[in-house]
Every structure is written in C-alpha cells, then in structure tokens.
C-alpha cells in the first residue's frame, strides 16, 4: 500500500491531551483557584477561611484609619508600591531599548562569521542563573566592593557611593537582568530587515538618522515591541533585584506578594488579590500588544 496516509490530523487532539492535562491542572487551575482565594477571609498563621468577602481588595484600595472607625479614604501605600514598580519597569524598558537596539543593530550588521561570536557573547548571560547574576552585581557595587574601591583608588570619589539599598541599585539590577531579553528579539527583526530600503532612502538624500526614524524603526517595530514586552512584564513582577539590591524604601510588587506568604504574619487572600491585580495589568499589556500586532498584520 504505497503512498499511505501521512495525515496527523486525526491524532492532533489525542497528542494534545498530556499538555492540556499538565498545564491545565498545574498552571491554569492554580491561577483560577488563586482568583477564588483573593475573595476569601484570612486566617491567622497563614491560610484561609472559606467565607467570601471583598476584604482583600478593600484593604488594597481603601483605608479607614488605624482602628477602622474613620471615614473611608484612598489607601495610597499599595498603589504607591504599584506606581513605583510600574515606573521602575518602565525606566528599565526604556534603558534596555536605548542600549539594546544599537547592540542588536550592530550585531545584525556584522559579517556572518563575527556575527555568530557577538551573538554568542550576548546569549551567555541570558543563560546564566538570574540569582547568581544579581548576587554578582551586588558584590560589585556594594559599599566596599570592587567598583567603589576602584573609583576611590583612582581618586574619582572620596568615600564609597552608597549604591546598595537605593532605587538606583534596583534599577541597575533590573536593567542588567533583562537587557538580553531586549537584544534578542530586535536582533531577529533587524536580521530580516531588507537593507535595500535604507539604500533607497539614502539615494533619495535621506540622512542616516532620518532613515532610521522613518524607515528602519517602523519596519522592525514588531521586534522592538516584543522586546519591550519581554523586559517590562518580568521587570514589573521582579523579586530578586528589589529584594537583594534594594531596601525597605525600594519595595516592589514582587516583595509585597512574597511577604504575604511568609510565616505567620502573612495574609494569603491579600497576597492573592495583589497577584490578581498584577496579573490583570500584565494581561492588559499583552492584549494591547496582541491588538497592535494584529493591526500590523492587516497592513
């Protein structure tokens, strides 16, 4: 029976069953359960009581004074933490773009042989354990660390720069953590870019920078947007950089969530509610991205 059937179509759904089961049970179901938990009542020493309430969300947005008997006002504590996190993640994304785009462009325009080497150099830190990278950065920039000692020995500064436990250190940590996530997708986009477009623009007397702004950036935009999402989303929920490099004043969403699940001081419904709010923000960002990508496809 030569020329037998090679169709995978009837097998498609059976083949998907393991993935559905594992991700459905161990990834989707937990998120749904977390949504339910955010409406439950907290139990002392961690855990929950199955009484439905809006307390967790109320605690996030509204304050009624220390003893709960004052008029309801907007609670700024957590909104400020979210604001700071969004700001930090935003700055981080912008910085990564400013350094990442030229890097990606430079690598993509190398001859094939050296390009592989450059790309290899960028990929290595991407694969190195994030914890180890963050610890290394802390070691480098701490008060009596090599950076401060070096700057002092060449007489550039008199005393150590107090970097650790500042927002600047956290920013540096975020930037350093997620920079490769920006370079790689932009590189992929620039690699596919047709340089004849730039040649044509140059023939029509467009300057280098006009060409970059008017031709290159619009064409490689999908890569740039993908890079921004890949940096912004993990930076927003980052835990290691703020925890290791920051202090009490640099609290970000990740630390706020973690605190709710550690020890007897925790508040699981509140932690679940904060996670839900973070998740909604991220899904909103992804939705905007998906719609922009769809529009791009229509053009």
């Amino acid at each position: 029976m030569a020329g037998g059937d090679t169709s995978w179509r009837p097998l498609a759904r059976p083949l998907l069953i393991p993935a559905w089961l594992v991700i459905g049970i161990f990834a989707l179901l937990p998120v749904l359960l977390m949504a339910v938990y955010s409406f439950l009542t907290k139990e002392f020493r961690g855990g929950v009581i199955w009484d439905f309430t809006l307390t967790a969300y109320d605690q996030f947005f509204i304050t009624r004074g220390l003893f709960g008997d004052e008029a309801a006002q907007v609670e700024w504590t957590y909104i400020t933490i979210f604001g700071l996190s969004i700001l930090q993640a935003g700055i981080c994304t912008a910085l990564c773009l400013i350094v990442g785009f030229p890097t990606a462009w430079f690598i993509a325009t190398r001859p094939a042989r050296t390009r592989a080497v450059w790309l290899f150099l960028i990929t290595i830190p991407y694969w190195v354990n994030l914890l180890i990278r963050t610890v290394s950065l802390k070691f480098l920039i701490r008060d009596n660390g090599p950076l401060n000692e070096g700057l002092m020995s060449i007489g550039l500064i008199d005393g150590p720069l107090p970097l650790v436990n500042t927002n600047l250190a956290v920013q540096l940590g975020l930037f350093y953590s997620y920079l490769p996530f920006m370079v790689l997708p932009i590189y992929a986009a620039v690699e596919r870019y047709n340089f004849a477009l730039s040649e044509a623009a140059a023939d029509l007397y467009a300057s280098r920078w006009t060409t970059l702004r008017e031709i290159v950036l619009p064409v490689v935009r999908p890569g740039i947007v993908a890079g921004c999402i890949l940096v912004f989303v993990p930076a927003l929920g980052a835990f290691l950089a703020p925890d290791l490099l920051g202090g009490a004043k640099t609290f970000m969403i990740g630390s706020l969530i973690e605190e709710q699940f550690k020890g007897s001081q925790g508040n699981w419904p509140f932690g679940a509610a904060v996670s839900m709010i973070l998740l909604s923000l991220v899904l909103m960002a992804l939705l905007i991205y998906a719609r922009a990508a769809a529009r791009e496809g229509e053009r």
Partner: protein
Amino acid sequence: MKGVRYYPGFLPLTVLCLVILYAPLIVVMAYSFNGSTSITKWGGFSLRWYVDVFTGPDAGRFGQAAWNSLTIALMAATSATVIATAAALAMVKGGRFRGKGASFALINLPLMVPEIVTAVASLIFFTAIGLTTGYGTILVAHMAFCIPFAFLPIAARLEGIEGSYEQAARDLYATRAQAFRLILLPLLAPGLASGWLLAFIISLDDFIITNFVKGAGMETLPTAIFGSVKQGIKPNIMAISTLMLAVSVLFVTAAYLINRKGQKTP
C-alpha cells in the same frame, strides 16, 4: 562614505552592553580564586574556596541541594520535552482543528503569567488539595512551567520539515510508526535537543516558583544560595557561582553547536 548599515555610536553602545553584562560575572569569577578569607582584600590566587565547596562545613547542604536541583531538572526537562513534542506534532502537523487557538494559548500560558503569580498560584493549589510541599511539588510545578520553553524550539524545527519526507517513506512501504521513528524523529532531533536543554536550564535556574512550593527543609541550589547570601556574600558562594556559570556556558555552547549542526541538514 560608510554604508547604510553604519551608525556612529552603535559600536560603543554594544561594547557598553557587553561590559555591563559581563563585569559582575568576571569580578565574581576572579574573587572566587581569592586566597583570603576576607571578600574585600585580595590574598593571592588560591583554589581553597573550591576545596571548601566540596569538603567545607556547607558541603553537605549544598551537595544535597545540587543533587535535588539536578534530578528535578532532569525529570522535569525530560517529561516536558515528551509532552511538548506531542503537542508540537499536533499543532504543526495537525492542520486546522477545533480548539487549536485555545490549545496554543494554554501551552503558552506559563510564559504570559508573571513568575511570581505562578508561584503564588501553585502554592495555593498544592495547599488547597492537601499536598505536602516538597520535592514532588517542585517537580510538577517545574514540569508544567518548562513545557512552553521546550515547545518553542521543537515546533520551530518541525515547521521547517516538509511533509514530503514522511510521504516518501510511506511510498517505500514504511509503516506510520517506522516513518515517524526512522525519518521524522531524526530530522527533529536538533529541535528536541535544544528544547530539552532550554527546559533543563530553566528548571535548574528557577528560584521564585521553587521558593514558594519547596516547603520547609527542602532546598535546591538556587534557594540554598539565596538563603546563604541573605547573611552576606561569602567566598564559597562565589566559587559555587563560578561553577554554575561554567555549567551554563557549557550548555549554551552545546545548544549552539547542536543548532549549527542542525542547520546543515534540511
């Protein structure tokens, strides 16, 4: 006149990018060979902290943690690769079918949800169904989380393999199973290898999810390092970091070589 590919200032920024990425790693690597007990002063080249990693007071704790990390990563990556391969065959070769879009979204779900949220959700889930957190819960959480990472390179490789290879095998009287095992699987091998490597490194590196679902007394290498670093960066941590760095570099090189070899065959 320089070509249209040239932009002034792009080379310095690239160099800056590499300096930022490498400076901390190189400094830690250098200090891991420091002979002094102080992490500030340089006491000459020495391997004492590497000896300390394997024989020192923390050797047992870190050894057990490394063993846990390794076995979990091996099992999680292997099962994730098998599941992701089946899913990739369905998604790439299966044509159009109902629920394809939903399946795609589900497979990529762990990539879209922030890691800290996945961690919280997993802890809540395991507690709610009454599972004691520990080795087993880390393993299943990693398995689910690794599937999309294994899926991406496997699906990408599969997309590049035309149906004609399998058809030719069938024309020559191969059974479906033979065509799969003798033709499709070998062609897919580079994708399988890079998918597995990626899943393995993702599991090995994971801190946040593990930290939430590990339970008391259970440690993987990242959580053990984190716990130790909380009390200050000691020289033995730098030696461990350098060793893990070496493992990562080994893996990237392997993935790179496999990919390059894969590109030569169809």
